[in-house]
């Protein structure tokens, strides 16, 4: 225990003083501040733009036009009456054209800019519309056009059957739907969830890589021979992993604290993303505690594997290829955790991702931010993760002890297992 503490203290102090650690911490803190300031900047700029928003204009003459919509009514279904068109879509001018112009108009849509064509045919007595446009997502929205033409057509039919103008007006006015979301907001929590998952993934991956590098460099510099003759391999691997973990945790807490302080000071209260109010209200003390717990456990799980990978090589430059299998596992686990988080309907998948030990550290914190997770699922996830870590710690210590004194070509997993059994 005393040796473990010695290894822990020395590793922690040495890495804390390293330039790489100081510089990376400063960069991450600055990036966090910038990221939190971007919404404030966007809000500031968009507010000045919103002084003359085009969609708020109703006068046809003053509105800035985005293009021209040509209409050809082949079977005269609308009786050439499109007078209400401009009320519904004021940003486009419309021109009614004759049937013989269809070919040339299609050409001008194809070759020109901001020109669109609607050709109306009658099919079994019901109008059918062919809509010509140059590029996808440019021009009037087809769903909107459908609504507009349907209204114009309905109005004309109702007029023909002598329904009063008042009824016609009532039928054509849209019914207002006021949305009152009672659960955790999807968009705002999704963004928070994505940020947390990324942060957890990169920090667990990055510190794991550090462990592998640190073990490999101890082998390269042959310090390992001194260490291994001075203390138990278990004290070295566990002490080192704990020290690096505490460093990582301090960095993570610093990032979260910087994020929160900048949020309080500079984040616009009414910032909207994709039309939804964006905030970090889902970061409650409980969710932050859980993020930290999952970081610690996830870090430990991957760090032990990385320490073994680092011990299998003799040169620092071989570390990347040695940790490749672990990187693959962590990337697959991350996507496994990430996919159900962005597809909220995949509930079963997200449950599995949050209890499988490899993906749980990425998945569960995200789930906790976006939905109400039953307590038993959190307990099961933590139980499996801790059990898996304990198993991996004991296996890793054995593998590490056999691998650290091996010099020469990189050890394969099968060779390592064979060596550790002796």
């Amino acid at each position, binding site marked *: 225990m005393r040796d473990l503490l010695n290894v822990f203290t020395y590793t922690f102090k040495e890495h804390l003083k390293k330039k790489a650690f100081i510089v990376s911490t400063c960069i991450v803190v600055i990036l966090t501040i910038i990221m939190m300031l971007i919404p404030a900047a966007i809000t500031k700029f968009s507010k000045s733009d919103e002084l003359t928003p085009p969609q708020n204009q109703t006068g046809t003459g003053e509105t800035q036009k985005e293009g021209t919509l040509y209409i050809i009514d082949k079977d005269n279904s609308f009786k050439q009456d499109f007078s209400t068109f401009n009320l519904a879509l004021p940003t486009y001018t419309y021109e009614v054209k004759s049937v013989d112009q269809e070919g040339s108009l299609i050409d001008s849509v194809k070759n020109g800019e901001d020109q669109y064509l609607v050709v109306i045919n009658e099919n079994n007595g019901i109008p059918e519309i062919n809509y010509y446009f140059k590029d996808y997502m440019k021009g009037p929205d087809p769903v909107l056009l459908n609504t507009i033409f349907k209204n114009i057509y309905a109005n004309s039919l109702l007029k023909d059957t002598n329904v009063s103008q008042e009824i016609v007006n009532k039928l054509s006015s849209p019914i207002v739907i006021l949305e009152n979301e009672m659960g955790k907001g999807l968009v705002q929590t999704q963004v928070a969830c994505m940020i947390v998952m990324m942060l957890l993934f990169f920090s667990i991956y990055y510190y794991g890589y550090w462990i592998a590098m640190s073990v490999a460099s101890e082998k390269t510099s042959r310090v*390992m*021979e001194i260490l291994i003759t001075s203390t138990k391999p278990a004290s070295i691997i566990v002490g080192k992993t704990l020290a690096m973990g505490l460093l990582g945790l301090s960095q993570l807490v610093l990032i979260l604290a910087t994020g929160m302080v900048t949020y309080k000071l500079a984040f616009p209260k009414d910032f909207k993303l994709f039309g939804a109010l964006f905030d970090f209200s889902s970061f409650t003390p409980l969710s932050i505690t859980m993020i930290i717990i999952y970081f610690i456990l996830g870090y430990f799980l991957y760090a032990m594997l990385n320490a073994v990978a680092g011990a299998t090589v003799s040169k620092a430059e071989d570390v990347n290829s040695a940790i490749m299998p672990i990187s693959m596992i962590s990337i697959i686990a991350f996507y496994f955790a990430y996919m159900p988080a962005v597809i909220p309907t995949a509930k079963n998948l997200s449950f599995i991702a949050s209890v499988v030990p490899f993906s749980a550290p990425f998945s569960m914190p995200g789930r906790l931010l976006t939905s109400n997770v039953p307590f038993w699922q959190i307990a099961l996830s933590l139980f499996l993760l801790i059990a898996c870590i304990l198993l991996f710690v004991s296996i890793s210590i054995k593998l590490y002890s056999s691998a650290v*004194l091996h010099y020469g070509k990189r050890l394969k997993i099968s060779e390592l297992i064979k060596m550790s059994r002796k």
Partner: protein
Amino acid sequence: MGLVVSESTKTYGEKIAVNKINFTFDKPGVFGLLGTNGAGKTTTIRMILGIIDKNSGEIMWNNKPVKRENVNFGYLPEERGLYPKSKVSEQLFYFGKLKGMNAKDAKKSLSYWLERLKATEYYNSVPEQLSKGNQQKIQLVTALIHDPELLILDEPFSGLDPINTDIFKSVVYELVEKNKYIIMSSHQMSTVEEYCKEILILDKGNTVLKGNLREIKSSYGRNNLSIQCEDNILDMAKDLNIGLKEKTPFGYEFKIQNDQQAYLLLGKMLEASIKLDKFEIREPSLHEIFIEKVGAAK
């Protein structure tokens, strides 16, 4: 008291690294572990240190199986094992604490050895800035800081200039005077000859020679004659049936059957008024024994 290695074998897969090694090191002093590269010296050392498991055999220190917790040993590895970017004082202090020292004793011992090795000025340096010889000094402190009973020095003199070699030698003498047990592995036969009472020569994992160095040498007899002179004496030697072993830059190495042969040659040389720089009848050197034993096995 001491170290007893019995029938210890270590294999790596099919390859036998060390085959049934046996020796007893029961009096303080220096024990020489010799062998060519890859002969099994490092494996033997690692078995003694208990950092690799043996396939069979027994290694006892003071009648207790060798384990990290039973033996207070110091180890100077062949290749330097220092953190290249950490301060000398901080890492030595760390190694001392790992060896079970308290902070006060570690600091005291650290200062003593740095001063003794004339390396105090490197207290705050980092090893990557030091020369090979100075790194070796720091490395020696890592092995000595906790005052070990058993010391294993793997190639201690490699990379040292004559001044530092003398400092190292004086430290080894100091340790011998303090009744320490030192196992020294080296390729420099003259150095081993200087210190070691007992030796063991390994070749491809097998023990080819072991025992008291003085006894080994005398068993070979005084059958070597070294002569340094400027004149050609080959014909005189031939007449007396003395075989030439080697012509050296300053003279000759002959193989003789007995002292009488040498004296006859000396008489002839004096008669011919040949100017003589050196005339020595001697036992074979460790170097010659090593070449004979290991060379014969190859």
